[in-house]
């Protein structure tokens, strides 16, 4: 095997989205050497640059920051009430408290570092994902964080249940890299790539959660997956863009099915109002769209028609001029859509995977079950429970900062351990396997098939038969297809098939965890709806589902909730009625959250 470069550092941060950058910057404060690895290009990968982006905090603290709106009558208690009811009580309340407490400070820092705020409301500021990434990149460079791009970490190395390093792959050159470190912060975001269509970058295939799981960390609440509503399904050039979601959230509009019916007719009017004009729209409208699809009432690409409806054109034009100046959303040219909206012509929209509530189990210090392994941001489980309405963007900063701090402290006075070279050799041989298998299965084909099945069976609406069918499929793939994945040639230089083959087992692992959890959760709550168990069951299911990784299979256990101050309700309530109750439980603070 070729000579492999070894890089030593104190704290290794895996993932270059907002959480990774923020953790790296903070760990550096502890006088540690910090290396942050990003699978894609620096500051232009992961979900963070794709975000709108809103940053939420309590309006009272916000009103004290110069230049921002903020509702002075808002409070930490009100925000707490709102996040926990939106999460249908499955939230880790300690993490919710941490979010609320740290949010104002983390926003001020960002503004000090140069973040521009576009607009603000009662408890949210609106900026851009790319703007945030630019600020973070500048700051990380200025404090001396070492940065590496286009490198995918494949596996963690542990010794006696402590992290000692990792194995990475330079995606461009195909060279392996050994990393030796004292602490690791996992910040690899979600696993959008397991679904199609999706709204995420193509780098989000879940290796971080999956490798932490293999290394001995638990993962949990994997059945809760948020689908963004009203994303473009056509034309291909716009597919997955959330532009119609943004416009419809602010201005409304109309959704019709292939029979010309208004799909919201018949639903409770309060539910419709809150479920379209607040950020509850992701859960409510995606549920409605999925139902239409299951009833065969959708158009060619599986979506519904979105038109301006009764919303005023002047209002839409005004909003568009702020969020997509000149109908440009970055390089996306939406001029034609502007014309269509004005003339009330339809575009096809539908739900697409956007956010993962579940992930790596952490405590309130962001520690996992593996010593020295921390997790932050979307790859971690906890803040949002069964349904996210408040900003995920806030969480990546509040968690990133504290996880980075704790990892830095942990690494500070510790010696690094030697890497087990024979274990590394084995891992590399395994990784190289797809390059040597001949006449096997094509990775791209398998990925396509899996993505379509995930969309169908693990969407907003599920049932036992479908989940079991999908599970059988995944189990079969694991045994009969994954070992046979093979690339057309054995070139290691930017070999897309090889990347697909390396990513796929991770996606299958997370899908299996998710499907098993969705099967186990015999109730409906938040973004998980079971046709065969259509009630929210607060007598039996105020529990998290934790998945332990055993070499052979997964072990699923229930875990009691982490509650600090808000006791959950009891009783069994039909899904949409409970959703309505949670909307009604909202505090008197206005805005979209």
């Amino acid at each position, binding site marked *: 095997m070729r000579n492999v470069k070894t890089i030593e550092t104190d704290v290794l941060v895996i993932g270059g989205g907002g959480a990774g950058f923020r953790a790296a910057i903070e760990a550096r404060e502890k006088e540690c050497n910090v290396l942050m690895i990003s699978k894609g290009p620096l500051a232009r990968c992961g979900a963070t640059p794709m975000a709108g982006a809103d940053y939420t905090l309590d309006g009272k603290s916000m009103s004290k920051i110069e230049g921002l709106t903020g509702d002075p009558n808002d409070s930490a208690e009100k925000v707490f009430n709102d996040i926990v009811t939106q999460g249908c009580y499955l939230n880790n309340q300690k993490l919710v408290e941490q979010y609320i407490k740290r949010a104002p400070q983390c926003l001020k820092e960002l503004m000090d570092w140069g973040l521009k705020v576009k607009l603000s409301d009662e408890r949210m500021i609106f900026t851009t994902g790319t703007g945030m990434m630019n600020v973070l990149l500048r700051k990380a460079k200025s404090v001396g964080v070492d940065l590496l791009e286009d490198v*995918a970490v494949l596996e963690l190395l542990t010794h006696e249940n402590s992290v000692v390093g990792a194995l990475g792959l330079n995606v*461009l050159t195909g060279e392996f890299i050994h990393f030796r470190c004292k602490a690791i912060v996992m910040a690899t975001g979600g696993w959008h790539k397991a679904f199609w269509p999706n709204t995420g970058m*193509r780098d989000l295939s879940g290796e971080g959660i999956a490798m932490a799981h293999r290394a001995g960390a638990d993962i949990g609440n994997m059945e809760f997956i948020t689908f963004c509503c009203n994303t473009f399904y056509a034309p291909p050039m716009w597919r997955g863009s959330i532009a119609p979601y943004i416009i419809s959230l602010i201005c409304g509009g109309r959704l019709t099915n292939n029979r010309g019916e208004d799909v919201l007719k018949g639903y409770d009017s309060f539910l419709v109002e809150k479920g379209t004009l607040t950020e509850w729209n992701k859960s409510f409208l995606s549920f409605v769209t999925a139902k239409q699809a299951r009833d065969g009432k959708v158009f060619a690409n599986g979506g519904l028609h979105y038109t301006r409806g009764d919303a005023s054109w002047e209002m839409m034009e005004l909003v568009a001029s702020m969020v997509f100046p000149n109908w440009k959303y970055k390089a996306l040219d939406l001029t034609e859509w502007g014309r269509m909206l004005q003339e009330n012509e339809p575009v096809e929209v539908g739900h697409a995977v956007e956010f993962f509530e579940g992930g790596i189990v952490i405590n309130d210090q962001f520690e996992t079950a593996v010593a020295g392994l921390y997790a932050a941001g979307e790859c971690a489980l906890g803040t949002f429970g069964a349904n996210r309405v408040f900003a995920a963007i806030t969480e990546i900063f509040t968690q990133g900062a504290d996880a980075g701090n704790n990892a830095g402290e942990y690494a500070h006075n510790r010696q690094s351990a030697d890497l087990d070279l024979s274990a590394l050799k084995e891992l590399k041989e395994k990784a190289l396997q797809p390059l040597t298998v001949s006449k096997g299965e094509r990775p791209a084909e398998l990925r396509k098939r899996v993505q379509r099945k995930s969309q169908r069976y693990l969407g907003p609406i599920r049932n036992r038969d479908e989940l079991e069918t999908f599970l059988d499929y995944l189990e079969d793939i694991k045994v009969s297809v994954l070992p046979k994945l093979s690339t057309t040639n054995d070139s290691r230089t930017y070999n*897309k098939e090889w990347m697909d083959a390396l990513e796929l087992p991770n996606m299958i692992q997370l899908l299996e965890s998710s499907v098993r959890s969705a099967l186990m959760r015999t109730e409906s709550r938040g973004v998980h709806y079971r046709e065969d168990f259509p009630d929210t069951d607060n007598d039996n299911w105020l529990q998290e589902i934790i998945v332990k990784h055993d070499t052979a299979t997964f072990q699923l256990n229930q875990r009691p909730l982490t509650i600090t101050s808000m006791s959950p309700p009891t009783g069994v309530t039909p899904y949409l009625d409970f959703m309505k109750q949670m909307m009604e439980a909202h505090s008197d603070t206005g805005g979209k959250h």
Partner: protein
Amino acid sequence: MTDEKIKVNVFRYDPAVDQEPYYQTYNVPWEPGMSAMTALDYIYNHLDGTLAYYDHAGCDLGICSQCTGKINGKSGLFCQTAVKEEITLEPRKKERVLKDLITQRAESSK
């Protein structure tokens, strides 16, 4: 999708095995509103798994700008350039090709 197909000519070069660059032509089904990236994805998924283009972390929505290249000789984003007829796709800098449409990064990233 329509039955119509278009020709997509792609710059190919793997310095490790090719003496010099060449162009390979693929027939790709055309659909309204497709981009050069839609065509590349089709080729990779259905016709030729060896084709290299920046995709392991692309956004496909005109935000990350990693898929910059030449489309019929003009610089642009593959993901936001509409394709309506025969088209030629090349890397942004032919002198710096790592493989096919992928170019080396300007400086090491540290």
